[in-house]
């Protein structure tokens, strides 16, 4: 058994009467690409916020590389939040410079390469960008970091097919590099599901199914059909 990237034991989080996480048990081994799947409101974003220490559990235990989430573990995490936005008066270049100063493991060289690859003008201001372009900026800030854990919450929303393919290529490179854990939540399964080593299906704040994607394919067919079967 290798290292564990994320461990959750009976994790609970309530917002008023709503149980966002309701006894979540989960073990994510390091070095894998994991699809975190489920309908809206199943707890995916709350789980990601908890891994990055933005939300504390009401009960239960969560560990990231063996430690409680906090500033120390966050140096090892690149997190793309749901509906992420950037400073509207920044140009792409300025955003990258900011990242170089403040984000541990950020590689300017990689970011510039990705920007060229995704056809982002470096002197373009965020406020003048389309949603898709801004999403690409946010994604680059994340995947240009050499850190052990990358968390992408709905990275493909508002991104066209060509850019999606480029993002997937960039992710394949990151994974080929070696020991890197990637968590991806997405509703756009078709393009990305071949990238998952493992899939975790959430419903009402609990894991209802998880496992090796090839094993799940044997049982359910594609991850898309697995979703249709599990959330009928």
């Amino acid at each position: 058994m290798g290292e564990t990237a994320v461990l959750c034991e009976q994790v609970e989080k309530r917002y008023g009467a709503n149980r966002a996480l309701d006894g979540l048990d989960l073990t994510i081994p390091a070095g894998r690409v994991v699809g975190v799947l489920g309908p809206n409101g199943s707890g995916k974003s709350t789980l990601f916020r908890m891994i990055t220490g933005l939300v504390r559990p009401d009960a239960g235990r969560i560990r990231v590389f063996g430690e409680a989430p906090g500033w120390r573990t966050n140096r090892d995490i690149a997190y793309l939040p749901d509906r992420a936005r950037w400073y509207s008066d920044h140009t792409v270049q300025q955003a990258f410079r900011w990242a170089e100063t403040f984000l541990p493991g950020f590689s300017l060289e990689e970011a510039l390469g990705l920007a060229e690859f995704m056809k982002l003008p470096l002197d373009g201001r965020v406020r003048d960008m389309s949603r898709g372009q801004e999403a690409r900026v946010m994604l680059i800030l994340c995947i240009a970091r050499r850190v052990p854990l990358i968390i992408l919450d709905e990275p493909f929303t508002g991104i066209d097919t060509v850019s999606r393919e480029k993002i997937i290529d960039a992710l394949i490179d990151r994974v080929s590099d070696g020991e890197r854990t990637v968590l991806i939540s997405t509703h756009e399964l078709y393009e990305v599901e071949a990238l998952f080593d493992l899939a975790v299906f959430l419903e009402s704040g609990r894991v209802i199914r998880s496992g090796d994607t090839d094993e799940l394919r044997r049982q359910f067919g594609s991850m898309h059909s697995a979703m249709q079967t599990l959330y009928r």
Partner: protein
Amino acid sequence: MDERQVGSLTFRLDLSQPLYEQILKQMRSAIAKGEIALGEKIPSVREMAHALKVNPNTVSHAYQELERDGLTETRRGQGTFITTSRERVQQFRRELAERLLADFVAQMQSLGYTWDEIEHCLHTKKKEAAVHGRNGGAL
């Protein structure tokens, strides 16, 4: 079903079936059919993962299995190559044929066909193929 080209190889990947098995099976059959020459270098795990748009771990797993089959060899610092042993590839091809044959016979027998009837069917099929041309003819 997606068709993807990697050098001289064509892969058909179906997301509703285990990907590792499909990659392994299609590589094995390309080698058995001689679509990749003896001693030829095969794409690196990273190149293959990019071309197929799949997880590099999946490709790497399939490559390990090919090496276990004795169909490929990894040379340190140089990459992975198809074996130079014609004998090994021929033996593997015979094993594949043996498995297909065993499946065919088992299925015919489960339909109630005897050995003589199976033999008769094969003869008829062969004659039909000769009439309809080299591809075995339309059904």
